């Protein structure tokens, strides 16, 4: 009997999982010293010259580090945050240095911090990958490859930052 109840409870868990956003294990993309990059994703261009990049930076050091810039040969990369003003206008603002606190992670995710890619030499296509370079104040340069997913695949992988 106890087993049946546990079985039903497991079914509830599976159904809740199926209904909710998937929360997969985070995948290590790259690391250097105290910095680890997880779940780096570039999106396939919907408009031919525009795209976006997302990743999570984890800082294992006992002091903060700062992401100063992102660059790629694929195009121009701009670090952005999203703000909504009192009139209800939502817009992107350049982010001048993203602090990664000691022993903490900061995520770039849909609807929040992201890297805007513009002036793409050619559209990013799902299944391809691009190299990006992060410039951090203490860890210096990290160069790694990022897979290109469609926006739909990206959102299903990362979920959407919930503003509420």
């Amino acid at each position, binding site marked *: *009997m106890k087993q049946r*109840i546990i079985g039903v409870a497991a079914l509830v868990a599976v159904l809740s999982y199926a209904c909710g*956003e998937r929360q997969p294990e985070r995948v290590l993309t790259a690391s250097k010293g105290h910095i680890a990059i997880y779940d780096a994703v570039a999106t396939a261009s919907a408009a031919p010259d525009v795209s976006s990049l997302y990743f999570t930076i984890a800082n294992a050091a006992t002091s903060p580090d700062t992401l100063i810039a992102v660059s790629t040969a694929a195009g121009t990369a701009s670090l952005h945050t999203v703000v909504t003003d009192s009139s*209800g206008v*939502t817009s992107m603002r350049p982010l001048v240095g993203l602090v990664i606190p000691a022993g903490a992670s900061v995520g770039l995710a849909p609807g929040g911090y992201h890297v805007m890619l*513009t002036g793409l030499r050619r559209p990013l296509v799902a299944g391809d990958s691009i190299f990006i370079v992060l410039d951090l104040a203490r860890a210096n340069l990290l160069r790694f490859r990022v897979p290109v997913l469609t*926006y*739909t695949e990206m959102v299903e992988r990362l979920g959407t930052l919930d*503003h509420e």
Partner: protein
Amino acid sequence: MTPILRKAALAAALATVALSVASCGGDSPRPGELHGAVLPAPLPKADFTLTNTAGEPFAFREETQGYVTLLFFGYTSCPDICPVHMANIAAVLRKLPPQTASRVKVVMVTVDPERDTPERLRTWLNAFDPSFVGLTGSTEEVNGILRSLMLPPAVKQGEGETDYLMGHAAQVIAFTTDDRAHVVYPSGTRQVDWAHDLPLLVEADWRSE
């Protein structure tokens, strides 16, 4: 556990399963249960005509009559908010039963007519769903529509000729078959929210309110 307690525990567990299943399908169209942001007062359906991506006039009110219509104002050079909304809606519509999905129309009005030609808008929308309607009009026309929906006008940010950003209202407005909008979906709305609400919006009988 006594036999009665066991039976009660099993019944409770099964009821939880039933609730879990119901929350996926959403068969009780009570507005209070919507995940979207319910408006303090419903908005009348906007009445305007703009140009679709085939270059033809599109009379919004007439063309969307009888459908749940998701109206969004955005632009194709937008890397995050706009494509994320479109990708989420498209993904959920593909997963819903066809008889529900076919009762939903998605209309995107560009707030960036300088760069968003009908062709560019079509290419962009096709990345999500070829059935999504793309509309272009002058800045004045689009700002007039935004004003009629009590939304702020779009704002150009940056001095570049072609290199600038647009600030814009980021919510998707859901018009229902009663030709009113009772609920909007802000940036950050997840697929689970759309999957929950769209069947309710399709089935809802707002006249009984």
